[in-house]
């Protein structure tokens, strides 16, 4: 399995090169890869259907519990086949849709990267592995949404999607880490058996909330739903693949995967049902109001995702079965409809419902695909969507709590789906029109074949559910419920209550379709309400963050050296004082004043000389005087070194001090005049800061000297300098022998400084000529 993942990564990054070599045929290798992966994973079908789970563990950083751990059970296999199967068709479709685009190679790179990441998410058996792939899907989604990077709208949408899903990813990471800590393992398959341990832990609630935030942002649940419609700025293949069929289902996958660990509690159940329900209603309502094809599809996707979350929340056997069936049905018909929308856009240049009429005449295969998918979406016999809808109603009616509410939500969304299905599957294509929308482009097979294939699969699954989908869905449901599942999917359940409800849905849906035009005139009245929605909060938040950051940067990075130094020194002082106040010892000076008596006269003289010299330095207007005073200060300090047993240091200090003075004098005439630039108030402020700093340093120095120095180094060098380094001057031996590499480094620094100085002296500036 690792090979497949790595091959995908390799292929992704070689896509731009392949495009250069193969031109428009680049889609061949790009579509072959998901096909190969599909076939490869299909080969595990018999094993997995037989009840096995397949592991593949590759050590990455075992000491941190981070491993490339792949885990293939029914649920993973179900998702991975969905991802790779869809991937094959989307890759082919993209080749036709973006034909001639100069950046097609890059597009394939992002898309393949996403596919690999998505495969990784559903295969991961290790928490960290899961998180890495999860973030990879967010990143590739960002790149794909921003594919048309010359448009500000695309860029903003991409950023929004990244911030929302990335923020969710952060929450997810926190949640997963907590989960790992609580469950005492980072391997998902081990966690699955520790549900009781996790749900009874006191950290259960925070970790559940964090993981849910991750799943909800990814799956566009209220109140994070707003990024998905904006993500429609991406090219249509991306919308069909990422934002309808696969990536947005990653959140659902996560919920499904962790149902055995986290599920079953009231908090889990009610949160999922409430959020899912609200999202379902909101998505359905908004879908009815829009006139842009892709926006309609985006909102119905949100609604469908809401249903999936609700069903996961109910958590009963029929609900989880319904969830899986509806997920598959939705992926099939919504993927098709997105591709159809892409074709319509490609052929006519518009996606506005008002301008599209009578497309069926010139786009027969696309129209057929649209109708097939729409019939499935509406839940008409004998399509797979029908089975999905029946199961949804059954699950809602069998729920133990809030039965009526859940049923109402499913019913309402079902009705809206019917109305929209009629618009997409019938009105656009087959309704008689005297003035059909003119065609700008003709359709190539790469464009109409994928939607036809996907929608036909929807019909096939509907006709033969027992043979084609039941086995894998059983195993997938088993992964969530933990016990073996034996349900059978059947198209025909006989004349019962649910069938009646289905018929009623169709009827009322048709009614809603008849009135949908009126809705479009009323809808704009609600617009002011959206200003209060999450989208607005996001915008305000982002704006505030940017403005705040700008202001903070302007405040902190204001271009004045002194304010930088001021901040650095103040921070340093606050930290030191804080540490001293927290834990630090107190300075004890009693008895140490005696030490003053030991001071020699010549030492006192030096100090007495230094202080007025420094004071004079502040006041002088002569640069020469300043340099002379500086030399004097340096020499005085060199004398201290001599007095306290450091002749080498003193010699160096004297030399350096002399050199500095010489340099100063040499270029003195090129240096600026002395002037007093700072105001009196500023000076007082500086004096206070500098004075405080000086006091603090004195205090620290005194404090350090209060304690004995414990160091084995002095004794070590004392013993070994002569015996090993053959030198009697220990300082010299350290520099040239024991620590000679450091000295080499020091020499290098000096050489670099010298080169810099030389360059600056030789540099000729333009305005000097």
């Amino acid at each position, binding site marked *: 399995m690792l090979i497949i993942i790595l091959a995908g990564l390799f292929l992704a990054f070689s896509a731009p090169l392949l495009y250069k070599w193969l031109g428009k045929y680049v889609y061949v290798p790009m579509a072959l890869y998901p096909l190969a992966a599909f076939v490869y994973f299909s080969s595990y079908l018999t094993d997995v259907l037989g009840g096995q789970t397949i592991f593949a563990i590759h050590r990455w950083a075992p000491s941190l519990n981070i491993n490339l751990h792949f885990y293939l059970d029914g649920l993973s296999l179900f998702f991975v086949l969905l991802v790779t199967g869809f991937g094959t068709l989307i890759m082919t479709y993209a080749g036709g849709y973006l034909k001639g685009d100069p950046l097609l190679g890059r597009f394939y790179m992002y898309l393949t990267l996403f596919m690999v990441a998505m495969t990784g998410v559903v295969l991961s058996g290790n928490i960290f592995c899961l998180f890495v792939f999860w973030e990879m899907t967010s990143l590739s989604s960002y790149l794909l949404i921003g594919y048309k990077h010359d448009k500000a709208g695309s860029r903003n949408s991409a950023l929004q999607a990244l911030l929302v899903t990335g923020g969710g990813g952060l929450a997810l990471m926190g949640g997963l880490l907590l989960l790992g800590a609580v469950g005492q393992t980072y391997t998902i398959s081990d966690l699955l058996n520790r549900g009781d341990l996790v749900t009874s832990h006191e950290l259960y609630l925070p970790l559940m909330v964090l993981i849910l935030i991750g799943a909800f942002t990814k799956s566009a649940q209220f109140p994070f739903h707003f990024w998905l419609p904006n993500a429609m700025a991406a090219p249509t293949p991306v919308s069909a693949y990422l934002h309808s069929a696969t990536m947005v289902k990653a959140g659902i996958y996560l919920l499904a995967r962790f149902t055995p660990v986290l599920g079953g509690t009231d908090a889990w159940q009610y949160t999922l049902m409430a959020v899912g329900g609200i999202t379902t209603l909101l998505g359905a309502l908004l879908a009815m109001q829009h006139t842009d094809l892709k926006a309609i599809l985006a909102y119905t996707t949100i609604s469908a995702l809401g249903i999936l979350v609700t069903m996961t929340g109910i958590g009963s056997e029929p609900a989880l079965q319904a969830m899986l069936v509806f997920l598959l049905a939705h992926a099939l018909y919504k993927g098709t409809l997105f591709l159809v929308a892409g074709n319509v856009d490609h052929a006519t240049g518009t996606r506005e419902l008002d301008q599209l009429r009578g497309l069926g005449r010139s786009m027969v295969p696309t129209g057929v695909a649209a109708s097939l998918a729409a019939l499935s979406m509406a839940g008409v016999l004998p399509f797979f969507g029908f089975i999905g809808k029946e199961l949804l109603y059954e699950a809602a009616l069998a729920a133990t709590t809030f039965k009526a509410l859940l049923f109402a939500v499913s019913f309402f969304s079902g009705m809206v789906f019917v109305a929209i299905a009629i618009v997409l599957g019938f009105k656009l294509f087959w309704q008689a029109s005297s003035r059909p929308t003119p065609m700008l482009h003709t359709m190539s097979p790469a464009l109409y074949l994928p939607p036809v294939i996907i929608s036909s699969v929807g019909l096939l699954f509907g006709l033969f559910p027992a043979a084609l989908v039941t086995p894998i869905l059983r195993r997938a449901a088993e992964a969530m419920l933990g016990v073996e599942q034996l349900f059978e999917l059947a198209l025909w359940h006989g004349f019962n209550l649910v069938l009646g409800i289905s018929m009623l849905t169709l009827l009322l849906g048709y009614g809603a379709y008849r009135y949908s035009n009126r809705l479009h005139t009323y809808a704009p009245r609600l617009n002011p309400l959206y200003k209060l929605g999450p989208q607005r909060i996001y915008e305000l938040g982002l704006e505030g963050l940017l403005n705040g950051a700008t202001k903070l940067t302007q405040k902190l990075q204001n271009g004045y050296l*002194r304010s930088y130094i001021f901040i650095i020194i103040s921070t340093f002082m606050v930290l030191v004082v804080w540490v001293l106040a927290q834990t630090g010892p107190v300075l004890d000076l009693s008895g140490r004043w005696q030490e003053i008596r030991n001071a020699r006269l010549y030492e*006192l003289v030096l100090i007495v000389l230094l202080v007025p010299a420094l004071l004079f330095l502040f006041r002088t207007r002569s640069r020469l005087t300043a340099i002379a005073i500086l030399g004097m200060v340096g020499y005085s300090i060199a004398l201290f070194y001599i007095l306290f047993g450091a002749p080498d*240091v003193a010699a160096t*200090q004297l030399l350096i001090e002399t050199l500095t003075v010489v340099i100063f004098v040499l270029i003195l005439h090129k240096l600026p005049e002395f002037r007093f630039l700072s105001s009196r108030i500023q000076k007082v402020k500086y004096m206070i800061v500098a004075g405080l700093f000086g006091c603090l340093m004195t205090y620290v120095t005194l404090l350090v000297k209060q304690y004995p120095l414990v160091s084995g180094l002095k004794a070590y060098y*004392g013993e070994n300098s002569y015996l090993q380094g053959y030198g009697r001057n220990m300082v010299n031996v350290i520099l040239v022998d024991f620590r000679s590499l450091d000295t080499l480094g020091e020499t290098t620094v000096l050489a670099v400084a010298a080169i810099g100085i030389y360059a600056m002296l030789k540099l000729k500036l333009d305005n000097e000529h």
Partner: protein
Amino acid sequence: MEILLPILVGILFASGLYLILHRHFFKLILGIIIFGLATNLFLFVIGRLTRGNTAIIDDDVTIASEPFADPVPQALLLTAIVIGFGIQAFAIVLIKRVYQAFGTNDLDDLDKTDKIHEELLSEGNTQKYDQQD
């Protein structure tokens, strides 16, 4: 001296910082140099003072006998002084060049590179950029 030298260290640090905080180039250099001196002396003082004893092994023995000065702070200091000199020399020449190039001796005039350009952030400019594409 155990008490007086720490006070001297504080005075030097304060003077160095006070000069660095000024706007004039020349004072900045003076400040840097004095701050360096203060740091060196600080290292020397916290490395413990031994009056009159050096870190040199006598001719007649092979192992140094107490009392002798700790050679480690001294070696450290030597390096610090030399590196400090590199910085000083570089700063002096740099400031001379800046003075020649910009004709100013005021640090506050050198804030162009650190300012965020307002127009880059405003929405209007992004749109203009889009149109140019």
